[in-house]
Structure formats: structure tokens, C-alpha cells
């Protein structure tokens, strides 16, 4: 490799953006084919291609950063900006669903009985499983911070333990929420209440799963000695994402589960 007279990372040509774009095309057109022609094959191919793209693209980033030393301080700064901007875009994504919820619930239509919750909807008790879910996510916020401090202090064993605990808590949340979904007395088709409830909490649950996977990858990398006490941005990004997921839940809990009941 030729020497560079700057601290930035000129990335080598990579096929993954192209395969990712093709995967996105196949997934979306596959979705349309599934709806109209009842065949899931195109969507399945797209999904597999997307998973392969993600695995290989991010594997390459780990190779470039951890093994080849390309992630100098300015490069890391760029990655930080990138993660912050991405999370900001996700905030706006959820903002839309909160807008929909408040639009519907502050001014309930005559079809709902002019009241919120709508007539005939039996809401979940916010002091039951939803409160437990809140405690679980808040606890996971504590454990992920514990993991970070362990990592910064060079305590490998505690970092692994607390990161594992964070993932277990995330998994526990997902299981509890899945049980709530199955046992809920209303469905996504139950008017605007069901629609706003399941779309908002559903996308949140998806983000919990994504965040858990991100943390699990960090756990694997921590076990394999990728992180140092001074350089572990992948973990920090995962922790930021996890805190974001927690905060979204707090807004969901207060707005939909508590105020909305």
C-alpha cells in the first residue's frame, strides 16, 4: 500500500453498496410481487442479499479499522458525526408516528365516540407489563453504561459481564413485548387506536432487536479483543443507539400507554 500524506481514509473500491442497492430493489419489488402474485421468492432473495451485504460491509469496516489502522482520530470523528446524524434521522422517523398518535388522540373523531381511548377499546394497564418493560430498558441503560466504564478502565471481565447483561435485558424486553402483542385485546386493525399503537410500538420493537444485535456484535468483538480502553467506537455507537431506543420507549410509555389510557 502507498503512503498517504493525510490522516483520512480513502476507502478501497467495494461491491457492497451495489449489492445493497440491488438487495433493496429486490426486497421492495419482491414485496409488491408478494402482495399481488402471492410469491415470496423475490423478496426472499432480496432479504438474503441484504443480510449478506450488511455482514460483509460491516466486516470490512472492522477489518479496516481494527486490523488495518485506518480509523485515525479524524476518521473516527467522521464516524461519530455519521452515527449522530443517523440517530437524528431515526428520531424524525419516530416523530412522524408520534405526530399521528397525537393528531388522532387529541381530537378523536365521532366514529370513535369523540373520546380517547375510543369506545370499545380496552387499553393495557400501564402499571403492569408496560411498567416492567420500562424498568427493564432503564436497567439496560445502566448496564450498558457500566460496560462502557469497564471498557474504559480496562476491566475486560466486567465489560463482558455487563454487556451480556444488557443484551439479556434487551431480549427480555422483546419476549415480554411479544407476549403483550399476543395477549392484547385489540389488533392493528382496530381503528386508529390499533394502528397508532402497533405501528409505533412495532417499529420500536424492531429497533430493540436491531440494537440488541448491534450490542451482541460488540460483545463478540470485545471477547475477541478488538476494543482497547481508548478506542472502542463501535461499542460507543451501539450504546448511543441503545440509549436512543430507551428514550423512544419512555416517550411511547408516557404518551401511548399512560396518557393514552
Amino acid at each position, binding site marked *: 500500500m502507498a503512503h498517504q500524506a493525510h490522516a483520512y481514509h480513502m476507502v478501497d473500491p467495494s461491491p457492497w453498496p451495489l449489492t445493497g442497492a440491488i438487495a433493496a430493489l429486490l426486497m421492495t419489488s419482491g414485496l409488491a410481487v408478494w402482495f399481488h402474485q402471492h410469491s415470496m421468492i423475490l423478496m426472499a432473495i432480496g432479504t438474503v442479499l441484504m443480510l449478506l451485504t450488511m455482514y460483509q460491509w460491516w466486516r470490512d469496516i472492522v477489518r479496516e479499522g481494527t486490523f488495518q489502522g485506518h480509523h485515525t482520530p479524524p476518521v473516527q470523528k467522521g464516524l461519530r458525526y455519521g452515527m449522530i446524524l443517523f440517530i437524528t434521522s431515526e428520531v424524525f422517523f419516530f416523530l412522524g408516528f408520534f405526530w399521528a398518535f397525537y393528531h388522532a388522540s387529541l381530537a378523536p373523531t365521532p366514529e370513535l365516540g*369523540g373520546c380517547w381511548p375510543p369506545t370499545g377499546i380496552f387499553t393495557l394497564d400501564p402499571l403492569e407489563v408496560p411498567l416492567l418493560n420500562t424498568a427493564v430498558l432503564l436497567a439496560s441503560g445502566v448496564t450498558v453504561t457500566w460496560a462502557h466504564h469497564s471498557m474504559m478502565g480496562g476491566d475486560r471481565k466486567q465489560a463482558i459481564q455487563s454487556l451480556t447483561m444488557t443484551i439479556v435485558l434487551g431480549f427480555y424486553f422483546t419476549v415480554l413485548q411479544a407476549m403483550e402483542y399476543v395477549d392484547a385485546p385489540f389488533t392493528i386493525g382496530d381503528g386508529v387506536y390499533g394502528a397508532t399503537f402497533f405501528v409505533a410500538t412495532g417499529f420500536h420493537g424492531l429497533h430493540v432487536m436491531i440494537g440488541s444485535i448491534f450490542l451482541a456484535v460488540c460483545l463478540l468483538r470485545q471477547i475477541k479483543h478488538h476494543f482497547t480502553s481508548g478506542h472502542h467506537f463501535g461499542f460507543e455507537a451501539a450504546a448511543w443507539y441503545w440509549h436512543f431506543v430507551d428514550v423512544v420507549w419512555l416517550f411511547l410509555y408516557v404518551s401511548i400507554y399512560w396518557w393514552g389510557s
Partner: protein
Amino acid sequence: MFRAVFRLSSTGARCLVRSKPSISAPLASRCYSHGQVETDEEFDARWVTYFSKPDIDAWELRKGMNTLIGYDLVPEAKIVDSALRACRRLNDMASAIRILEAVKDKAGPHKEIYPYLIQELQPTLSELGISTPEQLGMDKL
């Protein structure tokens, strides 16, 4: 606030003057340590103005009604009148009748309030062609 019921109106039944329910307590009797205190007249005027907006939209009508019904009071006839006229502008008969159901519910155990309100609103109900839930048989479950 619904103090009107306690003013002896020339047409109203004098037997309406009963023990003061808490709903008619003026705001000034609350124990605020600071902050603006709004008089009943200011409250009523504010809400009449809200519903009188010429281009009020359906969302604002529903939001206003929900907020108003959330208060611990029965709205004055003039506020309900303004809301009913907003329903007329929005061609929303359903909401007009629902408003009457809602104010009846807000009176709670004070069963003399709703008939008095309907009496006060009768000219408007006739003008706008709004039937009461009772006339439609909707008050029976």
C-alpha cells in the same frame, strides 16, 4: 363557569337554586401560590372566541371540545352555542349532537342542569335544526 344556573332567570325555574355544587366555585378559591387567575367571564369569553373562529377546522373543533370536557365544570350555554355554530360551519351534525350528550354527562348527578341548558339553547337548536339526543331516542341504551 356554570354560575348562570344560579342567577334567577325570568323563565328559569327558581327551584334551581340549590346548594352550590363545587362545579360553580370560582377559580379564585383555588390555592394557587402564584400565577394568573382567570375570572369566569374571561374563561367563557376565551372559549366562545375559540369556537367562533370563522375558519375553524374539524380537528380544532374536536380538540377544543375534548379540552373543554376535560375541565371540572359544565360549559356555559354561550360556549355550547358557539361550538354548535362551529359544527354548523363544518357540516358536522354528529358532533353537534355529541356535544349535547357530553354536557349532559358533565352535569353528573345534578340532573337539573341539562334541561336548563337545552332550554337556553332552544333558539339555536331550532335555528340550526339540531335535534337533541332525547328527540332521537338516543338517550336510551
